[in-house]
């Protein structure tokens, strides 16, 4: 049970405090309700590039990292399709430095042309390092635009293409800030060696004077239901063939979410899942195989990825996966199997809560979903999943007409 206090400032900023006196540190997490789904389709990669720009100084602070390091702190951030999340940990006696830094860049980051141009270069190198110059690195650039036709989940967070990043100018960056970076579009969570009272007073002092800007409410096109199986094949210089399948699932808050999550664990939870036991251990078709859900707020995907054993025919591998999925739809999972994945979920949840930083991030994200307290009811929600729910849910979602399949073929000569 994670106890917390929460309150809102007049400008709309939500503040959550979880006190944990066992740590000498405080973790400070600021979640902005803006992700790559808010990118202009002609300028994808903006939300993530903006995260980089938030480190280039702000109106009263020429450099973000330097004073933080001077106060013994450390920070990082990530952007995904839904959110941009900034976090730091700092010795509790210096937490006010964290407030000073984070409030100043919420107030007004410093946008100089030179810094923008440098960060564009940095992000383009990141694009190459992680997506273009990596074996299998372009999979999401292929899979997403096929699984989604209209919803902005059709591009990955890094963007569709480096040319989009190149086209971003100062004016675009300023507008993006004004539309999304506002106190009423953010959730501030403090976790660790701090009282709720101190957290409230410091929030009021540093964030209170920032004017509420009323962030733009997003209106995203809903993805129409997929009605036909989609398939594509590419050839790349990779050592082995790889199979990808993506099925549409419901949104993060749909009732089916815990069932879908457990379903992926039943199929591929580590080395005891059905996919691994059947297709790797028994049939020797793949060298590894995994399945997961993207956990996005809007309707997301369940994605399967298997690396084929040298010599395995792609069609044969695909058929074997489909057979295993049909079996899941038609024969109930055993109580023991279900208990296993629920226990594993409980264990991972409790272990994750041993870190003040994880607690701060999780509370922020649950608050974005509607209530920070959701964090405390998750285990119970997963416990309520029944064998019948698993069978029904598999039947509802894991159908060929709801699926995009990617055959990622090796073009190297030593492959059969």
């Amino acid at each position, binding site marked *: 049970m994670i106890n917390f206090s929460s309150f809102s400032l007049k400008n709309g900023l939500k503040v959550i405090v979880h006190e944990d006196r*066992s740590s*000498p*540190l405080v973790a400070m997490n600021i979640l902005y309700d803006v992700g790559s789904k808010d990118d202009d389709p002609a300028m994808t990669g903006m939300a993530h590039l903006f995260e980089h720009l938030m480190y280039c100084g702000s109106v*009263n*602070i020429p450099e973000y*990292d*330097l004073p933080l*390091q*001077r*106060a*013994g702190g*450390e920070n990082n951030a990530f952007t995904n399709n839904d959110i941009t999340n900034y976090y730091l*940990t*700092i010795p509790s*006696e*210096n937490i*006010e*430095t964290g*407030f*000073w830094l984070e*409030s*100043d860049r919420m*107030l007004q980051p410093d946008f100089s042309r030179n810094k923008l*141009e*440098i960060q564009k*270069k940095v*992000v383009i*190198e990141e694009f*190459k390092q*992680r997506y*273009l110059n*990596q*074996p299998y690195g372009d999979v999401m650039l292929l899979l997403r635009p096929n699984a989604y036709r209209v919803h902005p989940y059709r591009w990955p967070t890094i963007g569709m293409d480096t040319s989009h990043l190149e086209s971003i100018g100062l004016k675009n960056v300023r507008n993006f800030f004004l539309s999304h970076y506002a106190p009423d579009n953010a959730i501030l969570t403090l976790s660790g060696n701090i009282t709720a009272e101190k957290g409230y007073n410091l929030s009021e002092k*540093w964030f209170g*004077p920032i004017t509420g800007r009323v962030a733009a409410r997003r209106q995203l096109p809903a993805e129409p239901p997929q009605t036909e199986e989609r398939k594509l094949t590419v050839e790349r*210089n*990779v*050592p*082995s063939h790889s199979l990808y399948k993506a099925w549409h699932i419901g949104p993060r808050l749909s009732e089916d979410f815990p069932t879908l999550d457990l379903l992926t664990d039943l199929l591929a939870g*580590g*080395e*005891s899942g059905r996919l691994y036991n059947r297709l*790797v*251990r028994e049939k020797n078709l793949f*060298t*590894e195989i995994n399945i997961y859900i993207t956990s996005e707020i809007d309707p997301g995907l369940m994605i399967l990825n298997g*690396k084929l054993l*040298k010599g395995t025919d792609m069609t044969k591998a695909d058929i074997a996966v489909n057979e295993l999925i049909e079996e899941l739809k038609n024969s109930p999972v055993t109580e*023991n199997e279900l*208990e*296993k994945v629920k*226990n594993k979920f*409980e*264990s*991972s949840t*409790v*272990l994750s809560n*041993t*870190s*003040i930083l994880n607690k701060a991030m999780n509370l922020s994200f649950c608050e974005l979903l509607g209530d920070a307290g959701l964090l405390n009811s998750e285990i119970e929600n997963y416990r309520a999943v029944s064998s019948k729910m698993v069978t029904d849910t598999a039947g509802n979602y894991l159908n060929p007409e709801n699926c995009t399949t990617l055959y990622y073929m090796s073009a190297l000569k030593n492959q059969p």
Partner: protein
Amino acid sequence: MTSLHRSQPPIFPVNAGINIPAELFSLKNGIPLFIIDAGTEDVTRIEFVFRAGIVYETIPLVATSTNMMLSEGTMNYTAEELNSILDYYGVFLNLSAEKDTAGVTIYFLNKYIEKVLELMNEILFHPAFSERELDTMLKKRLSWYRINKQKVQNLATDNFFESVFGSNHPYGHQVKESDFEVVKSSLLREFHSRYYNPQGMTVIVSGKIHEKTITLFEHYFGELHFENNSPTDFDVPIKGSSEKKMFTEKKGALQTSVRIGSATINKRHPDYPGLKILNVILGGYFGSRLMKNIREEKGYTYGIHSSVTSLNLSGFKIISTEVGKKYTRKTAGEIYKEIRLLQTLPVPEDELEVVRNYMSGEMIRMFDGPFALAESFKSVWEFGLGNNYFLNFMDTIRTITSDEIIRLAQLYYNIDDLYEITAG
């Protein structure tokens, strides 16, 4: 509303409480058990450590394969059964075979401790090494191996270790595709019986410790029989390549991976804390000179880092980055320029102050929570060191002078001694 003056709030000195509350218990048969009782959640982390790392293997892949096969079936359970049971009890199990040590780390909820220890006894001392499971595992590893050989990062790193430590030394030896054909169950059994012994095992337990924990350890591990075959010491000398520069071409690569560094001292040497501080200034944190110059000012790369690592028989320092192909020469030039600056000009006091405080904060993070404590404990125990190492380190962070940094930069970063390994 009065307007707020947005200047930096006062900074208080950062004081890391340096104390790892590790208590030593010896089981009946002498197995050392270090207990770190800390934390708020009812969970435990246990690390079982053996001197069974890559340095002890005479045939490539044997140390890592032995380690990876521990959870692929035992005397009483098939691989599938074993993994299902581990998941049923919510156990997170990490296998690791490093250059010197190898072992297993587990995380679990305390309510399952009895079953977990029973399983760990099987995993550590009665693995099955089934030929069939080994075959599956080797195929998986071969597939990873082939993928890694497509990555410029891996090509450069593998070549770096080979150049620095020599191809005959296990620290530098590179795995070849044909090595996968040599690995057999019998080799793993032999390695296991020699190096995964009760007498060679150390256990580090951290988390919320219950009264019955020690009793359960006695029950599952205290009765194990010790045999008298102590591992032989390893005596191949470390001899780096005489060729200091090496480039491997990777057709179609969009980036070049750069690795610059050499062998160096380890934690047992009195200069080590100072060298770590020098490393932070050069490229060990976000505000480092390399990061500022090469990423933040020039935009050649997504990231550049330098690190210093201790090994049992040596140590190494390495600067790593992936840069756009056309920036390779310029990047190497800037790296050498930054090193020369550290060798000739004193580090300004405010920069040093930032590094002192940043590293003090890091020290607090290293001691925050039971799992971090356990990792920090192991990092010094491995070298026969204890709390004093950290006290001395903290003292060096507070008192190191800019003259001392120049001395260390001249002594340990002689540019002619550095290897420059690139791939792309």
